[in-house]
């Protein structure tokens, strides 16, 4: 939501807080890939049963009534559910802009035709690396050829080709080839997202974090390709929080624009908030979305800036960053209400410095733990 051009304050008269603008439906935690950098909770296998089609339709209708205009479908791999077409059709009918965020696994020609018929506006396809070996290694699957095939299918169906690639220690040195591949495929838009360390990515943090030199080289490579390709392919390079030392607002502000619903029906102000302790996550089958957004203790817990700790209260950037990411603060310090340690003013910033120093060591050699239900059950913790 960094790209949102109209600040939420400007969208409606201040009579009542505006509703969410963006509804993200994480329809399933099931996934054919096993990416070690996944942001899903490590203990996803312990989540309750998935919402029914009717539950999702009710969420979609309520969110639209509240003024939401973006409907994202994600997961896990959303295509593992067979009702995505139904959800897209209803969302589109109500005026949502509909966006499918997929690994491409399961996107057959027939399925794509059905989604197009349902009115799907946009597909974001994830790529993991530029070579078969590297893609298949990090995902722990054989999916490389399939992804290229799916990219060609979506293009043939008239969709702009929008590719997302998560960058980490093992693929960031292949960036030149990754961008070249995206250009070959004819991508209009490439998002290079450095790993954010949540869920499985936090668990694998040491193995995934690139060195400062790797990161600087990646930015230089990106800049060279931008010069070369111009408007033909837009490249967005998302800098990692740890290295940028700039805390970011949770999803553009906790409870300001974004509402996510988990596969088992919990409403969250950001994708990863269910890891936070001591909070009551409202279930969309038990509460109206309007109450959840405006009145639930969860959505008000870190809303605005009144709750900020002293370090942030006295800081001139507090309205810009709201003290940073709540999950990051909790994972690193054990206190969800602390200043995000990526901020150099945080009393806990040494934790970040230590992690960055560890990423500089040549002997960095940590085994990857792949995201799958068996490992999830064995680990039995949120991150």
């Amino acid at each position: 939501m960094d790209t949102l051009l109209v600040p939420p304050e400007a969208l409606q008269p201040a009579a009542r807080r505006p509703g969410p603008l963006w509804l993200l439906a994480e329809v399933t935690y099931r996934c054919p890939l096993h990416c070690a950098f996944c942001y899903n909770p490590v203990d996803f296998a312990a989540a309750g049963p998935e919402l029914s089609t009717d539950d999702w339709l009710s969420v979609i209708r309520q969110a639209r009534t509240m003024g939401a205009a973006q409907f994202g479908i994600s997961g896990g791999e959303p295509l593992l559910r067979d009702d995505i077409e139904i959800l897209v059709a209803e969302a589109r009918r109500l005026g949502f802009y509909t966006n499918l965020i997929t690994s491409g696994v399961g996107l057959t020609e027939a399925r794509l035709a059905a989604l197009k018929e349902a009115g799907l506006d946009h597909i974001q396809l994830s790529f993991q690396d530029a070579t078969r070996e590297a893609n298949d290694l990090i995902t722990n699957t054989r999916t490389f050829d399939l992804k290229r095939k799916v990219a060609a299918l979506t293009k043939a169906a008239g969709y702009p080709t929008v590719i997302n690639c998560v960058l980490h220690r093992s693929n960031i040195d292949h960036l030149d080839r990754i961008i070249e591949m995206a250009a070959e495929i004819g991508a209009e838009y490439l998002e290079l997202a450095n790993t954010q360390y949540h869920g499985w990515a936090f668990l694998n943090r040491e193995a995934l974090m690139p060195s400062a030199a790797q990161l600087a080289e990646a930015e230089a490579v990106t800049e060279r390709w931008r010069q070369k390709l111009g408007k033909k392919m837009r490249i967005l390079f998302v800098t990692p929080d740890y290295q940028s030392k700039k805390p970011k607002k949770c999803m553009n502000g906790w409870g300001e624009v974004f509402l996510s619903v988990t596969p088992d029906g919990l409403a969250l102000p950001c994708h990863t908030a269910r890891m936070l302790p001591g909070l009551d996550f409202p279930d969309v089958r038990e509460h109206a979305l309007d109450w959840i957004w405006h009145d639930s203790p969860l959505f008000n817990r870190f809303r605005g800036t009144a709750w900020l700790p002293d370090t942030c209260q006295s800081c001139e950037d507090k309205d810009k960053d709201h003290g940073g990411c709540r999950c990051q603060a909790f994972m690193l310090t054990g206190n969800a209400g602390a200043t995000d340690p990526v901020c150099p003013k945080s009393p806990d910033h040494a934790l970040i410095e230590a992690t960055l120093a560890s990423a500089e060591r040549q002997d960095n050699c940590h085994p990857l733990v792949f995201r799958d239900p068996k490992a999830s059950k064995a680990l039995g913790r949120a991150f």
Partner: protein
Amino acid sequence: MIPAGACPRINRLFRFQWEPAQQAHVLLYPEGMVKLNQSAGEILKRCDGNRDLPAIVADLEASFNATGLTPDVEAFLAMAEEQNWIDWTEA
């Protein structure tokens, strides 16, 4: 700069619609929204790929009982093209 006879249309990366909650026309794109002011909305509403610049200007001038809108519309469309909101059909 604008080829004669070419018609502007909304780029397929965006969807243009009236948004009741905003009481405004908006452009929707993945994970974002541009809220348009009234004149931007009225111009883009006419960018349907069938009308060229003079036709759009004539329609706006008739609808709003105005004259001499060509430079404003031209400037807006140049900006809109720069933002990728529109492209032009072949002349």
